[in-house]
């Protein structure tokens, strides 16, 4: 269990062990809330949420044995509400190789911030079908919501300043205050 | 009672002399050449060249028929600002200049404008259709000395032969726009690698050269005089050079744009660069310049071709060919360099006056007694072209934003100053 310190004045908000435990707990909570895994589907948001979605699905498989919950990846770049206002770079391509209609879709992302990405994701999901319900699992909730979006499953609540940058990987969660003097 | 004019302190260039003197003009003639001359109007010519006024062998004045683009008056004014005192008006008007009535009309309009001598040329064939001869004797009796179907070449070799034979008896000169029409159908620019990239039909050099060759041989067997309009290719120059060495009565002109612009400009998709014959390669430009220096080419002629703004805003293939030239000719020729001032004067005044057979009153040495058709120009002054400020009614000049060298300061036409300090006087 190595504590890796990232550049400059970053502080470590979660260690890699914390991350791993949070994901295990979220997986349990998802199964508990939904009374099992019937009709469940996990969709990770490109790019930050896909690795977490894979881990959650693996955990659920471990918990519920013999069950493979379908996992997909969704790129929301083309559904964002700020298109044309700043350069958009497209992440990896969406891949949802199953039918979502009637499913309980758990959207998974690494960091929940303004809520706009999740809004875009809910709109994007509509292209694939009409889910029965949509739930939201995030590793970190850093506050500063601009839309009425709330997570159902949270790894850690992390108060931050707007100017902070938050990164989340298997190695841990790091907060870099005001990295380039941005306001 | 007309006022006397003294042109002070300019360098007077004549065929055998060059000196800084004053030139005094009274009524419509040069009265005196000397120092410290006095007159009613003093025109400062310090730093300038004083020569006989320029003569353009090739100007499209568009009247009658296309007055939207230019009139004889606006074209004359453009000519005067360019240092011209005589313009040969091309006959592709509507109706064309193939009858005495139209010839007289054009001449009268020129006189009414009173800015230059407008010398109407006649058509070789009726209507310029290339089918039967125009009444050349009748037109010659009305004073026409130069005949051409310009805009087109005479395609039929037999007809051209007869035209030359007929012309010989009349003491007139035929001028040819060399273009074999079947080879240039739909052509927009020179046939070259650039037109390959653009997917545009090309105007191959041989379309000009074939007719140059044909007409040289027709001159050889008929003995009639022939003037080649707007030569544009290396091989055309070579053909004319050889013909002159054989002593044939052939003269040739080149335009300022063919001396300064090349085919690559068409890649801008700007129809202002579309012209017939088209802009060619840098090798052709060099060959034309060499032809000027060694006397193969006798004259610089503008092929001034005004078109209304709307016409040059069309697609490249639909836009009519042609560029303005009268006001920029001197500036372009001097900017290109490589030519002595004396040669420039010979190309723009002495030689063309002779070819047009108006050398009684134009292209003379500046000496006492000659008709006062003079040009005073500053050969060093640099200026850039603003199309909206040209006197021509149209704005299709390819030299927008370019820096030219050499500008006319004063022009005297029949003893009257038509241009003073670069401003037209009427």
């Amino acid at each position: 269990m190595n504590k890796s310190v990232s550049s400059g004045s970053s502080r470590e908000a979660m260690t890699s062990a914390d991350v791993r435990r949070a994901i295990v707990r979220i997986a349990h909570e998802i199964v508990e809330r939904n009374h099992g895994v019937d009709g469940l589907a996990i969709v990770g948001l490109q790019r930050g949420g896909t690795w977490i979605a894979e881990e959650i699905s693996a955990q659920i498989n471990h918990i519920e044995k013999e069950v493979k919950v379908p996992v997909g990846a969704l790129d929301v770049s083309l559904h964002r509400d700020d298109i044309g206002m700043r350069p958009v770079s497209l992440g990896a391509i969406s891949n949802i190789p199953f039918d979502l209609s009637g499913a309980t879709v758990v959207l998974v992302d690494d960091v929940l911030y303004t809520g706009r990405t999740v809004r875009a994701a809910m709109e994007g999901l509509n292209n694939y079908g009409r889910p029965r319900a949509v739930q939201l699992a995030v590793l970190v909730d850093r506050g500063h919501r601009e839309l009425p979006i709330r997570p159902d499953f949270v790894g850690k609540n992390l108060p931050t300043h707007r100017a902070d940058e938050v990164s989340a990987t298997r190695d841990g969660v790091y907060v870099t205050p005001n990295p380039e003097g941005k306001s | 009672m007309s006022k006397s004019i003294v042109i002070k302190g300019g360098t007077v260039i004549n065929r055998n002399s060059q000196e800084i003197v004053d030139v005094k003009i009274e009524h419509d003639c040069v009265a005196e050449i000397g120092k410290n001359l006095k007159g009613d109007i003093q025109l400062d010519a310090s730093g300038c060249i004083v020569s006989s006024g320029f003569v353009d062998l090739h100007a499209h004045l568009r009247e009658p028929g296309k007055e939207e683009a230019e009139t004889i008056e606006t074209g004359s004014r453009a000519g005067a600002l360019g240092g011209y005192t005589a313009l040969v008006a091309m006959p592709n008007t509507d109706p064309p200049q193939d009858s005495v009535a139209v010839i007289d009309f054009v001449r009268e309009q020129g006189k009414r404008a009173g800015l230059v001598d407008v010398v109407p040329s006649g058509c070789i064939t009726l209507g310029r259709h290339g089918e039967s001869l125009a009444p050349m004797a009748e037109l010659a009796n009305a004073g026409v000395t130069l005949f051409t179907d310009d805009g087109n070449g005479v395609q039929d070799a037999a007809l051209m032969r007869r035209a030359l034979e007929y012309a010989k008896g009349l003491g007139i000169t035929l001028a040819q726009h060399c273009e074999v029409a079947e080879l240039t159908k739909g052509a927009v620019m020179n046939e070259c690698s650039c037109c390959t990239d653009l997917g545009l039909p090309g105007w191959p050099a041989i379309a000009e050269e074939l007719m140059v060759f044909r007409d040289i041989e027709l001159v050889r067997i008929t003995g009639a005089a022939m003037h080649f309009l707007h030569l544009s290719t290396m091989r055309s120059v070579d053909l004319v050079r050889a013909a002159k060495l054989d002593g044939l009565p052939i003269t040739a002109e080149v335009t300022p744009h063919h001396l300064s612009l090349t085919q690559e400009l068409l890649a801008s998709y700007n129809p202002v660069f579309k012209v017939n014959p088209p802009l060619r390669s840098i090798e052709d430009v060099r060959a034309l310049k060499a032809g000027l220096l060694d006397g193969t080419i006798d004259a610089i002629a503008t092929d001034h071709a005004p078109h209304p703004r709307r016409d040059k805003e069309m697609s490249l293939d639909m836009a009519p060919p042609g560029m303005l030239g009268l006001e920029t000719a001197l500036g372009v020729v001097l900017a290109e360099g490589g030519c002595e001032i004396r040669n420039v004067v010979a190309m723009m005044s002495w030689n063309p006056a002779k070819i047009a057979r108006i050398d009684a009153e134009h292209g003379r040495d500046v000496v006492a007694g000659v008709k006062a058709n003079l040009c005073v120009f500053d050969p060093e002054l640099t200026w850039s072209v603003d199309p909206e400020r040209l006197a021509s009614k149209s704005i299709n000049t390819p030299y927008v934003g370019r820096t030219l060298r050499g500008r006319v300061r004063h022009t005297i036409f029949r003893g009257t100053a038509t241009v003073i300090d670069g401003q037209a006087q009427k």
Partner: protein
Amino acid sequence: MKHLRSIDELGLDGLTGLLQLTDHMAEINQRPVPKVPALRGRTVASLFFEDSTRTRLSFETAAKRLSADTMTFNVSTSSVNKGESLRDTVATITDMGVDAFVVRHKSVGIPWQISQWTTASIINAGDGAHQHPTQALVDCYTIREATHAQNFSGMKIAIVGDIKHSRVARSNIQAFTLLGASVVLVAPPTLLPPDVSHWPVGISHKLDEIIDKVDVLYMLRLQSERMAQGHVPTLREYSEQYGLTQKRVMALKSDAIVMHPGPMNRGVEMQIDPSDVKNSLIHRQVANGVSVRMAVLFELLGSGSSLGGQA
């Protein structure tokens, strides 16, 4: 990137960028609801001076899938076609609030000329015999899809037919060579442009000599007018020498691809039905048209790459 007017203006980076973006669009087109709000509020106007239902519909579908609004101007062959009021037409439409024009015209250079009269983005859907960049993008994407090759080095592509009058050929020659392919043009000398010595291509006048060596066989349409204009003695002779016959199909390498930009002149350059040609990707060319055009529209209007931008 403000305009898409020609492949050489696009450049290699622009070209590969658009091909990658097309993958995203292709995925969208697989969705049960193939629509994203990316260009909501933008207006795309079709200015087709030459008729082409297929290309025009392909662009309009692309615009709609990105939620853009569309306008179509069916320009008759009368005054506007003569270019008389082209400037006015363009300026008027721009004033109505158009963000992009898709233009097809029989005259070379129109997309560049139009750019002087409007601030909208211009997409060239074909200007005379000059360029048809979206077709080249479709063709490159189709080859890439079939071969999974990101670049085309080592690939031998033959373009067969009326190169002289073909905007598809000019755009494709640039695109294929930018991607590293080795291109050979196969045509009688009368259907080649006057001077191709500066083009990075090989030339052959005999299709049978190269057909078993190519990885991609790209057939161009021969218009029947070419016979009347004296470019070929008869269409039959052209077809015998340069057409895709059953015999030639058999001579192709087993993994060689056959392509055609459409529409086909059956019995002239295609003597055999393409659906009988195992390696034909003509249907993929058609299918990929919408995805490619979505990528182009998004890149010009939505990607933000033209922000603060010059053309």
